[in-house]
């Protein structure tokens, strides 16, 4: 691991095809800064991306990476980390990928608490398919497939995470570049599953959850000296408070023990002997 890694080392030479002004640019920059700030380099970093606009992130970043099946990025990331705990694993996806088609995996990834980071670019819309309701779209948000709104409450991802036993829950805003990078960095540094929901506005299809909306309504918990991120009940109250949008680390469990540690996983499993293990005949003898 080299100490002179700059965040641009995590950038590939492929130009993003995101719309000009897309929140995903800022989200990605913050991820790259956080990775560089935590002493990682592209050769020891594994980025897993989902499907959708957000899923393209793996192509624009430079690292070992997997761009997988829609909604299944989290299990891929967990598999990578379990097989080689030395790697820094970051999973990125969108609100559709994480909270709709991949919602089941989200709940179980949170429970499993593998030491990795999950960044969700939440724009509250399906962008790449040109503007349909997402699981975080507002109840009355009119789209081509929901002309009168979805008429169902949006998923509260942080509440879902808290209920599933999350050890680190944070929220950031892609346009607040410094804070976003700091928060992702804290998620990386957390011993366990670091979950960051990032408000990453879609400038083309979402005219409600806009940059202006988040700028006007975001409350940064870092500015509240009394807020204790280790207090479960306080976190629960903020998470269930529908009247505000919070930025910052909302909850962190100080006693988090990551999955790998619980299961004694320390080895790089890519290394195996040239033949059967030395004592392999013992396996046969068990069947006497």
């Amino acid at each position, binding site marked *: 691991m080299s100490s002179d890694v700059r965040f641009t080392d995590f950038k*590939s*030479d*492929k130009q993003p095809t995101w719309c000009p002004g897309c929140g995903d640019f800022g989200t990605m920059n913050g991820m790259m800064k956080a990775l560089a700030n935590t002493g990682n380099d*592209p*050769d*020891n*970093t*594994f980025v*897993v991306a989902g499907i959708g606009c957000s899923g393209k992130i*793996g*192509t624009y970043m*430079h*690292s*070992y*990476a*997997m*761009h*997988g*099946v829609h909604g*299944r990025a989290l*299990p*891929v*990331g*967990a*598999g*990578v*980390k*379990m*097989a*080689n705990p*030395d*790697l820094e694993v970051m999973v990125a996806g969108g609100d559709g990928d994480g909270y709709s088609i991949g919602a*089941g*995996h989200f*709940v*179980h990834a949170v429970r499993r608490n593998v030491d990795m980071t999950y960044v969700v670019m939440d724009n509250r819309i399906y962008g790449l398919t040109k503007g349909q309701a997402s699981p975080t779209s507002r109840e009355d948000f009119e789209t081509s497939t929901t002309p009168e709104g979805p008429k169902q409450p949006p998923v509260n991802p942080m509440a879902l995470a808290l209920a599933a036993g999350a050890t680190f829950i944070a929220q950031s805003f892609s346009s607040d570049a410094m804070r976003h990078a700091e928060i992702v960095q804290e998620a990386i540094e957390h011993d366990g599953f670091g979950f960051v929901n990032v408000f990453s506005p879609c400038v083309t299809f979402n005219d409600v959850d806009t940059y202006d909306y988040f700028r006007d309504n975001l409350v940064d918990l870092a500015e509240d000296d009394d807020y204790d991120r280790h207090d479960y009940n306080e976190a629960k109250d903020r998470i269930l408070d529908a009247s505000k949008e919070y930025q910052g680390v909302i909850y962190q469990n100080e006693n988090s023990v990551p999955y790998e540690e619980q*299961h*004694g*996983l320390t*080895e*790089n*499993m*890519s290394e*195996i*002997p*040239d*033949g*059967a*293990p030395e004592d*392999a*005949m013992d*396996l*046969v*003898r068990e*069947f*006497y």
Partner: protein
Amino acid sequence: MPADFNWAIGGEAGDGIDSTGKIFAQALSRAGRHVFTSKDFASRIRGGYTAYKVRTSVDQVQSVVDRLDVLIALTPRTIDENLDELHEGSVIVYDGERTTMQGVEIPEGMVGLDVPLQSIAEEKGGAIMRNVVALGAACAVADFPIEHLDSSLEKRFGGKGQAIVDNNKEAARAGRDYVHENYDHEFDYDLETTDNDYVLLNGDEAIGMGALAAGCRFYAGYPITPATDVMEYLTGRIEQYGGHVVQAEDELAAINLALGGARAGARAMTATSGPGIDLMTETFGLIATSETPLVIVDVMRSGPSTGMPTKQEQGDLNQMVYGGHGEIPRFTLAPTTVAECFHKTVEAFNLAEKYQTPVYLASDLAMAVTEQTFAPEEFDMDAVEIDRGKVVDDDTIGEWQNEKEQFKPHALTDDGVSPRSFPGTSGGAHMSTGLEHDELGRRTEDTDMRVEQVDKRNRKVETAQEREPWAYREFGDTDSGNLVISWGSNEGAMVEAIDFLEEEGIDVHFISVPYIFPRPDLSEVIEDADDVIVVECNNTGQFADILEHDALTRVKRVNKYNGVRFKADELAEDIKETLSQEITA
């Protein structure tokens, strides 16, 4: 007296049928006799009907037969369920004191041994030992020295303390003595013992052991009958080699976890049955397109849908050979015996890594629930070879980088196989994706690169076809015009069927095929035979269809796969050109 002896214990699920049967099978194996077991069971935890059947002989036994010599019946239904297999002179051991067995009718010509199993067990320390009393009674009938049960009882009950072991030994002896004292019937059985050492295992265990031998370090799965035994075998053992088993939330996660493990460089595997294969098929194309080595075991059961979860079928062959949208290069292996489950698993890992391709290993319920004896040398660990394929390290990676020092995980090579760099290798960082991609792994829709990458992936299969032996096994009279072909677990039954046919003066040439895709070219041997019969446990004859397809040579092909539809003028040109060509496919 036939050379083989067929024994069964049957009752309700929850009666301890499996463990009792296993104790007897193990005792026979340790006494140097060959064993082949089978189970009748239902998808329920308690109640219903369940049976554990043991066929044994001094010679190797490779199949079940429709004959039962001794039956321990814990319920009246056990007798009804087995009427077709029982014959004149069959012995039925039952407990006439048991409420449900009072007044039970023993079919005409059969010998009923009414043994107070429960009373004897209670006298020796507890009613729970009644099955062991029955085992002792069966030993008396079969003239099988009771001492051979001892080590198997120790293995089963050793963890519960010596007193429990001793009680069980006494219970078995009491059962034997009761038969000797109360029945003077001359039983026509004599279970001869030998000094041979055998191991006794089932197909799922053989797959698990093969995986460990092959260096599998990462297993992700979701419990499903009849594949769960693979996962349970690996749990507690794989850790000794630094590996890990993870129970996923579903099969979608299982295969993606395994995919992650494989991308990190571990030899990774998952095992499931048909319903799980359906879910895993979602990710199958990604594994192939991203050129990730992965072993996927399908322990088949009766489908479609939930079907008959505890019954046998080889119905998933088409799914394994053709499943998934788009066209997906793959390998499909089908071990033909329990021992071959071990060998083909090792081979599956090597094929997966040499050709960076997913490999299906097709086993089935019949193999999963069969405990079979083998000489331990059958599993020769020294003979296990590991071939990891074209893996590059920090020193060799330079050969596979472009002028900008970017690694080319999908380099266009003559044999189709590209270099592989494990995460952590300097200068090897790269993207793997389900999108069509260039040599660097970056998405592309360039028509030429699309065609080159499709061709390259298919070229790996062609390379494998040339380099690997794809050997099959032959039995019977190879000069016979009666050709029988089967795949997977039918081999044992067919091998023994040859003997039955011989008795009737019928010769057959039997070919047992362990490779479905790619597969050996059988078109010539099929052409030369007078009659060709394909044996498989399904309704439509899926392998037969494939073999017929192989023999069909009338069709010429025009294909286009660069992402652009056919254009009329171009198509006319293609047709004209193709008409003048020789048939190739």
